[in-house]
């Protein structure tokens, strides 16, 4: 292709994707994107994954991005095509996942006429994207696409949408290569790499002074790249400070290491939450003081000096006022801290936190994740524990849906590496897990990808099992089937007098037959004696599998900090009762 040869808008899209080293795109065709689908036909650098509904495409792109560290890409048509991805875009925005969504639009001259399959795409998606574009000039298309990718992946990552009217897809212009585009720095807002010396020196001083420090690590550490986790591990080992992670931070630090306190927050461990409550120094690395983590704000870690690493300035002092903060990219900050410690020869006395560790070990002795497994009925906690024990030697990725099963997965599946855990945290999108598993499997064809699911969530995007079958993606859907929307039922039990309004899911399909009807494999475990066999069969079959695991229908997820309660007011089991005053206040919260 000569340099100034003109291409159509559709061809420019493909050329730009090639230039951006995109190898996989998720999508669903329709009238307003036919020119791009025509350009896809007969090329072979790009694998297109045809989903069964656009929601599947956007969650698959999220799963692809989370598991690979690359930008996830999807292509949908105008009108319903793009309104179907609104949930996923919002999900990606909340969880800082880099994706680029291309959507078709009615031809320019029809915009505003209520044309067939027209909608105000940029208007609808403005609050749920990091940025969006309506392409009005074919000559700007190449630059827009390259800028979109840059915005999606830089700073705090997020979703970007490009809406392309059909006439622009046919119009011709000269392609501009990524390397020929100069980005304006105010538009990209990439994270600073400049080290804040004062912040680092203050942090070291406080670590030296502190009696009861704790690391509180979130998804920002993961988004900073794999090196951030390595630097974090080094820093934790150097300082001997306990570490707890948020739901998205799982895997940033090996869960089975003795310094790890596990997850904190609403369903976090007793030791993690009490450490947060009683610490005198809190080192927040890439977490955003989410309400699932803090509990009641006025009782949140009342006596600590707080340090906050966050690339996003708007995260600083948003929910919780901190004493020191830095907006420098976490990898650079952590690296600088480790270098500072090594170059100045500072040592940390093993005995400095001796009392703190013995206090933590006392809390650990509560064994808050303990459960009683009978001989018959499978406890959900046991199902996840066995799944972990039978798969942790493999190269495994875990996605989840949203609800009790998600929390049990977070508690009992112990992640050792970053980017292995893909879940919908901020938005809490049921139906996320299976398409996300499809995306993760596309990015990691030789790995084991398991979607830990509940039967209610699974049914929200059940159609995507056909996608997995079509592309021979051997994803494993591990359903903890209790016939309830479990988390809804749990809240109704705790806060609404056990009135289980509409949370029982009657008329469930036979999941084994369902799998078979899609040409996938179905396995089932009705009781404890069948559990291991079901898991082993699920893992060994090289095809998509739905495992229907019948669990205890009434089991609830503990520990739990009810809404409106503080970290020191955890319920550890169904025998713990909530403070009635909190209950009144908490009932109006989410």
């Amino acid at each position, binding site marked *: 292709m000569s340099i100034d040869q003109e291409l159509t808008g559709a061809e420019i899209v493909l050329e730009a994707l090639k230039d951006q080293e995109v190898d996989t795109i998720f999508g669903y065709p329709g009238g307003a994107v036919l020119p791009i689908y025509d350009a896809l036909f007969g090329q072979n650098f790009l694998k297109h994954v045809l989903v069964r509904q656009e929601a599947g495409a956007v969650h698959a792109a999220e799963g692809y991005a989370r598991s690979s560290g690359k930008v996830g890409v999807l292509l949908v048509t105008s009108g319903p095509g793009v309104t179907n991805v609104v949930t996923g875009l919002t999900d990606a925005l909340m969880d800082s996942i880099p994706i680029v969504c291309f959507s078709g639009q009615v031809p320019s001259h029809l915009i505003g006429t209520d044309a067939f399959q027209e909608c105000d795409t940029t208007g609808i998606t403005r609050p749920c994207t990091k940025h969006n574009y309506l392409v009005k000039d074919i000559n700007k298309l190449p630059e827009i696409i390259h800028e979109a990718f840059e915005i999606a992946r830089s700073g705090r990552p997020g979703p970007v949408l490009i809406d392309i009217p059909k006439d622009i897809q046919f119009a011709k212009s000269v392609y501009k290569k990524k390397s020929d585009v100069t980005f304006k720095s105010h538009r990209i807002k990439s994270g600073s790499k400049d080290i804040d010396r004062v912040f680092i020196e203050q942090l070291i001083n406080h670590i030296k002074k502190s009696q009861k420090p704790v690391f509180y690590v979130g998804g920002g550490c993961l988004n900073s790249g794999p090196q951030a986790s390595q630097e974090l591990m080094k820093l934790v080992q150097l300082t001997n400070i306990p570490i707890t992670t948020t739901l998205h931070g799982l895997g940033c630090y090996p869960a089975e290491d003795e310094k790890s306190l596990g997850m904190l927050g609403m369903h976090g461990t007793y030791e993690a939450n009490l450490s947060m409550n009683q610490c005198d120094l809190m080192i927040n690395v890439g977490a955003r003081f989410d309400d699932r983590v803090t509990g009641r704000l006025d009782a949140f870690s009342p006596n600590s000096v707080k340090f906050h690493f966050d690339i996003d*300035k708007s995260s600083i002092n948003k929910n919780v006022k901190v*004493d020191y903060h830095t907006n420098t990219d976490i990898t650079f900050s952590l690296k600088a801290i480790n270098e500072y410690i090594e170059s100045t020869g500072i040592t940390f006395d093993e005995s400095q936190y001796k009392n703190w560790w013995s206090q933590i070990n006392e809390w650990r002795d509560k064994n808050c994740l303990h459960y009683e497994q009978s001989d018959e009925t499978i406890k959900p906690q046991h199902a996840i524990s066995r799944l972990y024990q039978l798969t942790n030697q493999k190269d495994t990725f875990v996605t989840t849906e949203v609800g009790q099963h998600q929390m049990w997965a977070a508690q009992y599946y112990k992640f050792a590496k970053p980017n292995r855990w893909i879940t919908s945290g901020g938005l809490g999108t049921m139906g996320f897990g299976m398409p996300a598993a499809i995306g993760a499997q596309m990015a990691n064809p030789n790995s084991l990808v398991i979607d830990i699911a509940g039967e209610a969530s699974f049914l929200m995007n059940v159609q995507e099992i056909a996608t997995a079958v079509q592309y021979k993606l051997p994803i494993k859907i591990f359903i903890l089937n209790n016939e309830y929307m479990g988390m809804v039922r749990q809240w109704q039990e705790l806060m609404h007098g056990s009135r289980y309004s509409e949370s029982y899911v009657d008329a469930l399909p036979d999941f084994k037959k369902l799998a078979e009807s899609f040409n996938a494999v179905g396995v089932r475990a009705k009781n404890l004696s069948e559990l291991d066999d079901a898991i082993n069969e699920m893992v060994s079959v090289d095809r998509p599998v739905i495992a229907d695991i019948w669990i205890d229908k009434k089991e609830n997820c503990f520990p739990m900090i009810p809404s409106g309660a503080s970290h020191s007011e955890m319920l550890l089991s169904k025998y713990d009762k909530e403070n009635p005053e909190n209950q009144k206040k908490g009932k109006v919260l989410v």
Partner: protein
Amino acid sequence: MSNSSVYPTPLNTFKQSKRSVLSVIVDNEPGILARITGLFSGRGYNIEALNVTVVDIKDNLSRITIETLGEERVVNQILAQLEKLVPVHSAINLANLKESYEAEICLVKIQFENEQQNNEILSFADIYRARTVQKRQLLVIYEISGTSERINKFLDDLHTISGIKVEKVRSGPIGLGI
């Protein structure tokens, strides 16, 4: 140990709302105003006044001035959220500058019925140095500029005259810092 680490819940706090004037430089591109107003409505912030105009044709920049009410922490959060928007170059709170100057423009149409009212109107216009834009029998249009507070006072004074009809339009404050 810092005292600043203890903070009350939003529910029980007496909020110290303050008027702030924010000045935002943006790329003049489609949808930018919607991004900004959407940010305010979506996150529950207040817009008391809003002014948008292109200020640099060569670089295609607009300056948006927003008057908002909120406690300091909320205003700082608004600025941080504004700065995250892709087309935003900068967002500042004029109150945080060492020196800043504000002005607003207001057009006032007054319909009156008699000479006595006219004299009262004239005397206020004189005190506030309002400029006559148009004068007809029993009708006058003034232009007054200055700080919003000054304009408020002028309008309050006019309202002390009984029996006249006042219609007004205000630009909202604009400001510059040094």
